[in-house]
């Protein structure tokens, strides 16, 4: 059992480890006929050099803004909608819920062309707002929150109602504390998903000023056209590092969140 899992783990780790060693090698050492796992001279300066060719600090900042901007609005929209579907009675509730499910199943990739034209006519090309807008409603998040709100016992709500606690105050002070673990799980998944977004940010941006890490990496690849592998791997490692470090420290949290709320 340990043999099977050990070799599987090794195979999974090799691609990243191989990039790590390449990222600190000298340019000459890349071309040895037999692969060298341990660099002879550790060239940390590769990581500094990357910044000379592309503004990765700006990409990093943009990614942070976009990811957190998406999450902040999502938390509001999915809490409100999830609560409505779980605890309020209204006409067409089922039908409306199916409308939300459509977005969960219909990936944004399918409708990039009309969405691009919408963003363009709103004059929002090359803005961080453009990268966030289509994700501000989340059918999937609503689905999760509906499940979570449903599990709150009715007595809790009734006691609050008898005390005269209604509307948004009921939601904020009684209901939200009950669903905090689900909000956290959704947040982790949202951050990972949008940190990794590629196609949509690629389409709506064409200047380094607003670009995110993944797009910055792809541009860097084109600009270097595969010539300097040490720099390319250093850039790749840099783009992946923030989430991987977070994962190493919060492994259980991440795994539990994905277990609970697997779909993106």
């Amino acid at each position, binding site marked *: *059992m340990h043999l*099977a*899992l050990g070799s599987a*783990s*090794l195979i*999974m780790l*090799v*691609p*990243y480890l191989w*990039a790590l060693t390449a990222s600190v090698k000298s340019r000459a050492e890349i071309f040895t006929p037999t*692969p060298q796992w341990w660099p002879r001279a550790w060239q940390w300066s590769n990581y500094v050099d990357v910044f000379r060719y592309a503004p990765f600090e700006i990409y990093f900042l943009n990614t942070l803004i976009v990811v957190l901007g998406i999450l902040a609005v999502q938390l509001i*929209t*999915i809490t*409100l*909608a999830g*609560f*409505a579907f779980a605890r*309020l*009675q*209204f*006409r067409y509730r089922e039908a409306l819920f199916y409308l939300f*499910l*459509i977005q969960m*199943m*219909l*990936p*944004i*990739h*399918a*409708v*990039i062309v*009309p*969405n691009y*034209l*919408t963003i363009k006519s709103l004059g929002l090309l090359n803005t961080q707002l453009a990268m966030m*807008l289509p994700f*501000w*409603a989340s*059918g999937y998040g609503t689905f999760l929150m509906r499940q979570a709100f449903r599990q709150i016992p009715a007595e809790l709500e009734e006691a609050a*109602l008898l005390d005269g606690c209604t509307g948004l105050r009921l939601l904020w002070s009684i209901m939200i504390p009950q669903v905090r673990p689900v909000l956290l799980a959704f947040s982790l998944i949202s951050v990972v998903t949008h940190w990794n977004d*590629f*196609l949509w940010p*690629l*389409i709506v941006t064409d200047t380094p000023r607003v670009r995110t890490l*993944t797009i910055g990496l*792809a541009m860097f*690849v084109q600009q270097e056209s595969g010539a300097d*592998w040490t720099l*390319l*791997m250093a850039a790749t490692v840099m*783009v992946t590092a923030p*989430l*991987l470090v977070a*994962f190493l420290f919060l*492994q259980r949290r*991440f795994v539990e969140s*994905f*277990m*609970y709320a*697997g779909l993106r």
Partner: protein
Amino acid sequence: MAHSRASWRGQGGAQAFLYLLPSLLFLAIFTYWPMLRAIAMSLLEWNLSRPEPVFAGLRNYATLLADPVFHLVLRNTAMLAAVAIPISIALGLVLAILLNEPLGFLRGVYRAAVFYPTMIPMAAAAMLWVWLFNPSIGLVNYYLGKLGLPRVEWLYDMTWALPAVMISWIWKNVGYLTILYLAGLQAVPTELLEAASVEGAGFWQRVRYVTLPFLGPTTVFVVVVSLINSFQVFDAVHIMTQGGPADRSNVLVYFLYQQAFRFWDIGVASALTAFFVAGLLVFVVFVVGQMERGVFYEV
């Protein structure tokens, strides 16, 4: 109790409307409207040589259907789903079953090693594999040589470009599927497993007769998620092959991107979008039907 329920049912409509409004606004603009608009635009001739759109009937659909690249793209997309999904599901299932056994402190290590690619952007994962698949100094060809197998040009090879994309996709997704199966395994009652052990069932017998029957719902879910993901492959193709050589690794979303943002043919791209959306909706109706039947009881 009856009193309080009745009191909020009355105002529920207005309150619910307000709570749903923010979501519905964004859904309307970026999900429903674009679906309808794509259908409308698919009936227009609107491209570089005709910047002002004119009505074209179903000509864009005809163009698409007559395009041999489109057929190749559909075949590649189907191939990717048909090959990569079963492999990643099988691997995910086996890894989950193994990881669910008592393993001591190493379990965390194995789990991290299997799961970490989920945290990596597909674009970055694709870069790792471009480096591994490098024909002259890549690690893959080096070890193939050591095993006495022929070296392959991988991303530059008509036959091997698509499999190379699949390999990177499987590597990136298998940990995620493993976690989904690990979640599913928590539904298997331990008493049943213990009873089977007492009856003298070995490890694989327990898996076959006790564990697997409980994983049906998880598998349906995993297949659906994987299919939806496989229709959307873009990042890996963009980074690794640009659809080449000769469109041998071109897939649906990459083809859509080319039509719209490389060739600026909005009409044909819209026809493709309408086709894509219609296909997905049929798929969704099918999946929702499954949900109604309670397959998704846990998620």
